[in-house]
């Protein structure tokens, strides 16, 4: 209860814009106790993306030895843009030893602030810029999970068509759409995916509207790359199936959720904060997937045994490293060849992915 109370208090404090309340603590001298700071793009109560990051932070604190060893501070619902830079700078000044900026849009802000605070370690999630030696990037291969979802979708859909609620046309999202389509086409080569761009990470109402529009347009499976549980509820109301996002959303659709990609950041956060304590922190670029335990599938539910078996097989193949979803032959949406038979996409290409594969019923916004 105490932690909840502290959390609630802190939230209120931030809500009242208590910039004056931030104390300037000492430098990075003694490392018996570290301060780890987190910047979230949504509220930690979104039960999706930001929620999972916060769960990872709490798990890290527990793993390392509780509040005596690690102090956690966080700011939630930080807009991507100028505000992010201010928030990160404030953390850097307030004695944070390591700062985790957990959204793609914090990329430039993180690098800017990192240049001004060489003694503070910065970790940016899902980005690719490391302009200073104290900036690391980390990401998860969510697309591995999306491929498995695609396999399930193609087996479950009677319409031969799934709806995809997307957020912003960044490589991370495009990669997910492509992997989903490839997974589905491995079962049904004619499978179609309708994409709707919500142009937001978090707006339950708008996400619900997008889900309704897709159902009205005839899809009978919905997947999302936005952060709230609203699409799951709409799928439930309309009696179709859906995939959860970022966390296990089974409570919102006990008869609806097929599975969900669960982001598990706890092990990574533990490892990195420990490295700061030991003085062994080094710049790196980590991209872990199912193999590393960063991407976990929620239980396969609401599907017949043969579909479940196919999903488990796809998952096992990816987990063992035997199969990469982006293995040729793959054709681009415009019909040109991307990957030859047996060719595997380079990580650098995936991280800048800006085109669809064949079968996506949408024009990619540029």
């Amino acid at each position: 209860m105490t932690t909840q109370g502290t959390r609630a208090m802190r939230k209120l404090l931030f809500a009242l814009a208590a910039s004056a309340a931030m104390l300037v603590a000492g430098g990075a001298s003694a490392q018996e106790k570290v301060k780890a700071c987190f910047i979230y793009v949504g509220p930690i109560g979104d039960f999706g993306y930001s929620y999972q990051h916060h769960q990872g932070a709490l798990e890290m604190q527990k793993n390392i030895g509780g509040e005596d060893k690690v102090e956690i501070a966080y700011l939630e619902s930080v807009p991507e843009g100028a505000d992010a830079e201010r928030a990160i700078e404030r953390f850097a000044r307030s004695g944070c030893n390591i700062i985790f900026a957990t959204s793609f849009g914090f990329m430039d802000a993180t690098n800017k602030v990192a240049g001004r605070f060489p003694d503070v370690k910065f970790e940016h999630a899902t980005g690719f810029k490391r302009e200073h030696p104290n900036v690391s990037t980390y990401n998860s291969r969510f697309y591995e999970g999306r491929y498995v979802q695609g396999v399930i979708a193609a087996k479950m859909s009677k319409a031969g068509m799934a709806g995809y609620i997307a957020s912003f046309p960044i490589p991370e999202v495009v990669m997910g759409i492509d992997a989903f389509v490839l997974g589905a086409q491995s079962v049904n080569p004619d499978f179609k995916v309708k994409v709707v761009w919500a142009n937001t990470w978090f707006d339950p109402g708008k996400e619900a509207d997008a889900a309704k529009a897709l159902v009205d347009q005839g899809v009978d499976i919905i997947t999302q790359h936005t952060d709230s549980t609203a699409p799951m509820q709409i799928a439930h109301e309309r009696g179709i199936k859906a995939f959860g996002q970022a966390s296990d959303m089974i409570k919102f659709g006990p008869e609806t959720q097929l599975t969900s990609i669960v982001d598990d950041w706890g092990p990574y956060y533990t490892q990195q904060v420990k490295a700061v304590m030991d003085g062994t922190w080094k710049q790196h670029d980590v991209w872990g997937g199912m193999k590393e335990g960063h991407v976990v599938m929620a239980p396969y539910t609401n599907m017949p045994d043969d579909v479940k078996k196919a999903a488990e097989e796809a998952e096992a193949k990816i987990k063992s490293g035997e199969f990469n979803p982006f293995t040729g032959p793959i054709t681009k949406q415009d019909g040109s060849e991307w990957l030859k038979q047996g060719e595997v996409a380079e990580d650098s290409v995936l991280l800048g992915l800006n085109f669809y594969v064949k079968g996506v019923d949408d024009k990619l916004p540029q």
Partner: protein
Amino acid sequence: MGMAEAILLTIATAATPLLLAAIGELVVERSGVLNLGVEGMMLMGAVAGFGAALTTGSAWVGVFAGIITGALFSLLFAFLVLTLVTNQVATGLALTLLGIGVSGMIGEAFVGQPGVKLTNIHIPGLSDLPYVGRLLFGQDPLFYISVLLTVGVAWFLFRTRAGLTLRSVGDSHSSAHALGIRVIAIRYAAIAFGGACAGLAGAHLSLVYTTQWIENMTAGRGWIALALVVFASWRPLRVFVGAYLFGAISILQLHIQAMNLADLAFLPGPLYWLLAQLKSLPSQFLSALPYLATVAVLVLISRNRRLTIMNTPASLGQPFVPDR
């Protein structure tokens, strides 16, 4: 259920919370007070409505809890700006920030819990009529309340003596005061009404629109409602048009993104051409379209400058201290 009917139903759901919040704020502003706390009051209504419905199992209890919480929360604002004569803009912004924080704190226990849905009405026979049955006789109760409220407010403001009094307070509080009208009392009542409407709008979000509580789930709808009031030049029926236009374009742009042009070849040429053009636009532009179109249309409707000045409450946002 045909596609057109399905789309219209979705539009009504999207427009209702905007309409509810905006019609309440319209009355507040007509009385001469600018309350920028709509977003915060909506969130308080949403969290209270969700919590009450979850605890009691009755969505209607949630609706009333939302209304009452919104009204009580707005009275905090009323006390500050009317009795203590604080700056209305700053106090309104503070109310929004406070609402975001407090609702998040209260709602912590509700996150991740499926809520109670306010069920749609069903009139045997009528609700099952083809094409219009669901639309006219089968929506959620708050939809009907929002329409009645719009008509009621229009009638009250322009057809009753009490409405005239309220408008006179908004136009010139000193003159109204000199005539013996109780300016402060009327403004307290107007603010409480606005709060109740915002609370109801919030309850719509957490009990009808998406049956769940998530922090900050209004996602800016309070600000859209505020803008609607101004662009509609403080006229209830124009607020209605604005809310529905905004809702319609928000929904239609999603359909344009999702539709398959090949399936629509049966449409008349010009319509098909228009849809094809819209579909070729970047989705970022389509997302911005509701804002652009609503502003454009309301500005066009309100282009008569003389009438606009006449409709603008002249005392809007100005502090009032009775001189005995």
